């Protein structure tokens, strides 16, 4: 259930960064996140929550790519980070 809150925070971060970079919401094609080993997030539930939030919004082209990090050395076990946003600029029409 808390995955919906997490998906909502992810979407807010994506909106903020896309807006700051003058990227159209419809050009965002993927969002990469990393989850620590003990972040207590169920991946399918997070995917479903994200999809539910973005469907029928300008961000509906965005898919969520989740990378779970089991190596404690790489990140803290509870950490959850939005790493990147993939953007597919639409072709300019002549």
């Amino acid at each position, binding site marked *: *259930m*808390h995955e919906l*809150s*997490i998906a909502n*925070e*992810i979407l*807010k*971060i*994506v909106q903020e*960064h*896309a807006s700051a*970079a003058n*990227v159209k919401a419809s050009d965002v*094609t*993927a969002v990469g*996140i990393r989850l620590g080993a*003990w*972040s*207590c997030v169920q991946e399918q539930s997070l995917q479903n929550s994200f999809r539910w939030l973005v469907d029928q919004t300008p961000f509906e082209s965005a898919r969520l790519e989740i990378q779970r990090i089991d190596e404690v050395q790489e990140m803290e*076990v*509870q*950490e*959850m*980070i*939005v*790493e*990147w*946003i*993939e*953007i*597919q*600029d639409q*072709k300019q029409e002549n």
Partner: protein
Amino acid sequence: MEPRILQVRTKILKANDTLARQMRQEFLSRGIFVSNWVSSPGSGKTLWLENTLRQLIDRGLQVAAIVGDLETDRDAQRLERSGACVRQIMTHGLCHLEADMIRKEWEAWDIGPIDYLFIENVGNLVCPTSWDLGESLRVGLLSVTEGEDKPLKYPGLFNTCDVALLTKMDLAQACEFDQVLAIENLQAVRPGIEVFETSGKTLEGMDLWIDWLENRRKISLLSNP
């Protein structure tokens, strides 16, 4: 056209963490020691907290509590029996408390100076893990009826706790509870964690707990003048 990547590298709960950090500083600057109590439902949080509130009031301290539940204000009513000021947050389905919920409740509360604010989180061993509520101390409770292996099954939550309370110790024998193993399991996921053996029925462990809590409060306030 090839897709391009915009680097973001931002913590997902950054907004909550930033607010929680501000709240922690504000609470400490006002001399308020805040603790966040987490456990599964039915672990004995409310009874032990009610007893804790009563003991602190008996020592002349000003205490208050915010309690989170999906529905009903039953726990708030129980905690009020101690004489403490209590507010109930009904989350209506949400499985955890967030910093902003505590802030809103706190700002709407016309309360005088207090020494302690206790937050009894929604009973859940998963969802409250990631949400900092501005506390200075996170208390994890594990009842003997749940079994010794709970910390290994829910390492995320117990790893975030500063102290653990083994509750319902009056039932330990009947449950064949192995407290040595339970403590080993807690230490495995949170090395160095302080553990208290307690019973809300017999008040076993209460004096040690209150002394420890008071000590932690004083150290915390001294460290944040």
